[in-house]
């Protein structure tokens, strides 16, 4: 620990933000390499794109360590970042490291080193949770011994000794673990408001104080366990909440890291200058070179861009942007250089907008949680008045202050909103956990609530019903020989069509030997020389066969596009591609219809293709060639009919629809913007998560309502008994724990039970 602390003290505020999760002890990620390095070096943090496996991790670290002056490099795969420590004597900036990563095949971007504080809060909560958990378990251990010995053979002195022991554990634990609640309650009272933390704090403090007093009086009415376990359960909820927000924040930061730092602008006299992207203003003329990332949102003024919008749309096939077309910051220009005029910069770009959405997404709260908060405003004063009234009532009837206070504390403990506070979060955590194991991520906090109300499902085609990955049309008359030749060329490219060709070759059991000296012309195709003559694989125009392509007539249903192979003067061969349906698309659609959902298909694709897809998947309601705004329009129509619509889609064109639908789901392959707009994201090549999600959403709402009923019913029964003094604080504490356990058990059961709707 001393090792880790040392460098931190020395670095102080210089310490860059390594990752959201470990900035507090920034050097620790590298401490295992060389603890001293962190103390003497400068640190940089980079966001690295497409770093998804152990191999990439190793390549990134090796590449960075290959740069002179690097003392250590350590990848954090979970956050997609790498932190390095550089010898201070070398006046390095981040450029050589980014270059090194580039030559290793990774695009990286430095993260700014400000905001080095925010994370301390998370770990702080985790430590308090650990202390509360330790105290709860040990005090429970002692309490169980006391309870089972009470009134039996346990000596009074031993009982008191155990009580004192509990006090010794509980008091420091409450003082430490309760701070977040006490602080929040205090802040609320200062602002003359009352929140849920006020009765919690009061209950915990009174229970602890009274228990301490009763211990000194050698009484049996001791309930340290109640106070500590209450804190423990509540802290679990807070920690989970923080964790979700932290992930969202880190994702948003990584996302913004993709903006390019410098931009080439054109002055009115035609001279070009490279300036920082942050200095670009709307209306400036820009040049975006081939292979460069678009720095700001812009409109093309001259040239034809070939844009890889995978970042925004998830679409792997580059999009052609002609003069007047829009370019979005963060996308990559694969074609030749284009001239453009900036339309939106910095915080106004689509990319920044998305990042902002991601950041705020987790901060919204579920409707039931909001309901609980609102209830707390009424509930908390009611609890206090009830407790006070009990105390005064008992005094008035003629009892001494001791039984009066005991009854009042029993009321406070019984009414302690523990079960009520747990009712919804416990169910949400269980449901989200269950879905997470199936590769389904629930992003919106109230997503499950809204999903459970859905009665109509609107699906997109490409990437949703289909896989969104082109595949060679099976059974086409491409000979093994030709396919092998095409694959040999295609193996050099990462274009989706090229990959499909290689995949098809492997599927036929052909050996693919990549040809050397292949030249890739962005947006056109691949060229190489083989056996003395030129081989071309690419678009019809690229293969000089525009005329021939028309002759052959390519327009079969389901066909996505085509690629041609031309070897010397031999007859060129066409490769046709389709976008195959997800393997379980038709069964899932059938099941959804059987469950009573109305299913509809809205696609921007050509009519013939959409009709074929609808037929294959068993959807009777479909529309083709729908523009994004028409999708939204159709959703509004359905809304007007009183339907609750679930939108399932993946592309940029679905994003507005996803955002405007009652609930939305996107596959993990979807455009980032669509993922941001949707409530739920699912992984994998199957569509069945859709059914599971809907089933769990419905079950979780039933369980949440059940939990509300349990906790309210429990209060209705026990509060009058506590007021009358029939329930002592210890029974109240046991009953309270039981109600919390019932509520939690109900939630856990949801995580495991078989749902009849789910397949």
């Amino acid at each position, binding site marked *: 620990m001393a090792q880790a602390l040392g460098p931190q003290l020395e670095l102080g505020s210089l310490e860059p933000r390594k990752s959201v999760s470990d900035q507090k002890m920034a050097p620790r990620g590298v401490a295992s390499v060389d603890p001293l390095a962190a103390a003497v070096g400068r640190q940089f943090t980079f966001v690295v794109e497409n770093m998804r496996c152990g191999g990439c991790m190793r390549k990134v670290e090796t590449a960075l360590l*290959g740069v002179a002056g690097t003392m250590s490099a350590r990848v954090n*795969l979970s956050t997609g970042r790498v932190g390095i420590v550089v010898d201070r004597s070398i006046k390095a900036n981040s450029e050589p490291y980014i270059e090194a990563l580039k030559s290793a095949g990774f695009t990286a971007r430095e993260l700014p080193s400000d905001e080095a504080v925010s994370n301390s809060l998370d770990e702080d909560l985790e430590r308090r949770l650990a202390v509360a958990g330790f105290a709860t378990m040990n005090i429970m251990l002692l309490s169980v011994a006391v309870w089972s010995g009470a009134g039996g053979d346990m000596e009074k002195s031993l009982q008191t000794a155990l009580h004192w022991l509990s006090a010794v554990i509980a008091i420091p634990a409450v003082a430490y673990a309760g701070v977040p609640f006490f602080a929040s309650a205090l802040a609320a009272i200062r602002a003359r408001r009352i929140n849920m933390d006020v009765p919690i704090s009061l209950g915990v403090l009174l229970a602890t104080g009274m228990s301490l007093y009763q211990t000194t009086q050698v009484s049996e009415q001791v309930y340290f366990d109640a106070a500590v376990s209450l804190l423990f359960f509540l802290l679990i909820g807070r920690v989970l909440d923080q964790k979700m927000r932290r992930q969202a924040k880190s994702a948003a930061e990584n996302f913004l890291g993709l903006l390019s730092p410098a931009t080439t602008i054109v002055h009115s006299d035609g001279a070009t200058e490279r300036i920082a992207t942050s200095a670009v203003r709307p209306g400036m003329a820009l040049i975006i070179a081939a292979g460069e990332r678009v720095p700001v949102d812009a409109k093309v003024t001259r040239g034809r861009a070939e844009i890889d919008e995978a970042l925004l749309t998830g679409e792997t096939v580059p999009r052609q942007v002609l003069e007047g077309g829009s370019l979005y910051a963060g996308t990559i220009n694969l074609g030749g250089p284009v001239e453009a005029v900036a339309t939106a910069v910095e915080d106004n770009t689509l990319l920044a907008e998305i990042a902002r959405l991601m950041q705020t997404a987790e901060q919204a709260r579920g409707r039931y949680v909001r309901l609980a908060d609102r209830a707390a405003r009424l509930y908390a004063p009611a609890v206090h008045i009830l407790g006070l009234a009990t105390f005064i009532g008992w005094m008035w009837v003629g009892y001494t202050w001791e039984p009066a206070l005991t009854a009042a504390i029993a009321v406070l403990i019984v009414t302690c909103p523990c079960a009520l506070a747990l009712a919804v979060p416990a169910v949400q955590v269980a449901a989200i956990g269950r879905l997470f194991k199936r590769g389904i991520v629930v992003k919106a906090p109230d997503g499950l609530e809204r999903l459970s109300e859905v009665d109509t499902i609107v699906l997109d085609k490409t990437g949703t019903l289909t896989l969104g990955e082109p595949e060679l049309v099976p059974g086409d008359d491409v000979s093994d020989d030709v396919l092998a030749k095409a694959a040999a060329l295609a193996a050099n490219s990462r274009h989706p069509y090229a990959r499909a060709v290689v995949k098809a070759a492997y599927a036929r059991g052909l050996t693919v030997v990549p040809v050397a000296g292949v030249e890739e012309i962005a947006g056109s195709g691949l060229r190489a020389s083989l056996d003395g003559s030129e081989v071309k694989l690419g678009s019809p125009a690229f293969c000089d066969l525009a005329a021939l392509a028309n002759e052959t007539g390519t327009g079969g249903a389901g066909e996505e596009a085509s690629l041609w192979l031309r070897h010397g003067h031999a007859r060129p061969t066409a490769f046709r591609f389709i976008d195959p349906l997800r393997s379980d698309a038709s069964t899932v659609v059938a099941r959804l219809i059987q469950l009573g959902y109305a299913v509809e298909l809205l696609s921007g694709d050509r009519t013939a293709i959409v009709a074929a897809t609808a037929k294959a998947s068993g959807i009777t309601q479909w529309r083709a060639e729908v523009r994004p705004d028409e999708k939204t329009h159709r959703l509004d129509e359905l809304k007007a009919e009183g339907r609750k619509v679930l939108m399932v889609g993946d592309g940029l064109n679905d994003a507005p629809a996803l955002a405007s639908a009652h609930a939305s789901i996107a596959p993990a392959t979807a455009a980032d913007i669509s993922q941001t707009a949707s409530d739920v994201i699912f992984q994998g090549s199957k569509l069945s998560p859709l059914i599971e999600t809907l089933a769990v959403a419905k079950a979780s709402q039933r369980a949440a309502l059940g939990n509300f009923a349990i906790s309210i019913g429990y209060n209705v029964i026990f509060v009058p008994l506590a007021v009358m003094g029939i329930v002592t604080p210890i029974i109240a504490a046991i009953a309270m724990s039981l109600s919390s356990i019932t509520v939690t058990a109900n939630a856990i059961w949801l995580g495991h039970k078989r749902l009849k709707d789910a397949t």
Partner: protein
Amino acid sequence: MTALAWLIPAALALGALGLVAFMWALRTGQYDDLDGAAWRALDDDPVSPKKGPRDGEQ
């Protein structure tokens, strides 16, 4: 009864040990990169710095 005199401290000490272990794990960032740690277990030898450039390694 005298057994309790050492059983209870022993139980508490073991509990405290667990607590300290967790605090240590949290502090040293053992939970920071759960995905990466799974992969690192497969690496035989850690890469060390200053071995000269190894560009283009794919």
